[in-house]
C-alpha cells in the first residue's frame, strides 16, 4: 500500500521569502502521479501542481515548483516570493495511474499549515 508523509505540521515565513514544504512517499509502483493541493480557510481544495513520475523534469507553475527525487521518494514544494494569499494548508497526494486495479484514488499526506506573515 502507498503512504504519504508530511513531516512539517506547521511553517511560517515572512512575505516575499521562499519556503519549501517537504513530502515523502512510499510505493512499489514505477509509474505514478504526485500532487500538491492548497486548502485556504475557505476549505476549497485547489490543485497547485502535478508531477508525473516518468518525467525527470521538475514541474513548475509560476511561483510554485517541485523538487522530485524519485530514488529518494521525495517530492518537495517550493514557493518563491511568498504572498499573504499563500496562507493555507498544503497537502501532498499520490495517485496510481489508470488501469484495471486503479480507481484513480488519491492517497493524502496529513498536511502542512503554512502561514505567511506580513
Amino acid at each position, binding site marked *: 500500500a502507498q503512504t*504519504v508523509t508530511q513531516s512539517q*505540521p506547521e511553517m511560517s515565513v515572512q512575505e516575499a521569502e521562499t519556503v519549501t514544504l517537504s513530502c515523502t512517499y512510499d510505493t512499489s509502483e514505477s*509509474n505514478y*502521479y504526485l500532487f500538491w493541493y492548497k486548502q485556504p480557510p*475557505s*476549505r*476549497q*481544495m485547489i*490543485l497547485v501542481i*502535478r508531477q*508525473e513520475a516518468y518525467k525527470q523534469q521538475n514541474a513548475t507553475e509560476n511561483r510554485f515548483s517541485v523538487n522530485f527525487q524519485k530514488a529518494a521518494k521525495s517530492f518537495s514544494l517550493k514557493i518563491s516570493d511568498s504572498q499573504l494569499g499563500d496562507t493555507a494548508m498544503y*497537502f501532498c*497526494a499520490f*495517485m496510481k*495511474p*489508470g*488501469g484495471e486495479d486503479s*480507481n*484513480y*484514488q*488519491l*492517497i*493524502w*499526506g*496529513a*498536511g502542512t499549515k503554512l502561514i505567511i506573515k506580513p
Partner: protein
Amino acid sequence: NAGVTQTPKFRVLKTGQSMTLLCAQDMNHEYMYWYRQDPGMGLRLIHYSVGEGTTAKGEVPDGYNVSRLKKQNFLLGLESAAPSQTSVYFCASSYPGLAGSSYNEQFFGPGTRLTVL
C-alpha cells in the same frame, strides 16, 4: 457551470440520527468520490463510484452508505450517526477520459462540516 456542489454546507446531528449528504456535478464526470477530512490527517476515501449505478468501498466505509442513481449525483448516507463521524466531508469527481487513461484530475466540492453530538 457550477462544478461540484455539496448540500448542506453545515449540519449538527444528535447521536443516532440519520442524514444524507448530496453531491452534484455538472461536468459529465464518470467517477465520483466521498472523502472525510479529520484534524491532523489527510483526506481518507469513504466510498467511490466509477459510473451511474455502481459504488465501491474505499478506505473507511463503515457506518456509511452511498448511492449513484443518476450520473450527476452521488449521495452519502449516515444511518445512525456517531460522534466519531464528526468530520468535514468532501465530494470529488473526475473524468477518466480515454479508456485506460493514465491520469485524471479530481475536482472538489466545498465540503460539508458535520458535527455529531
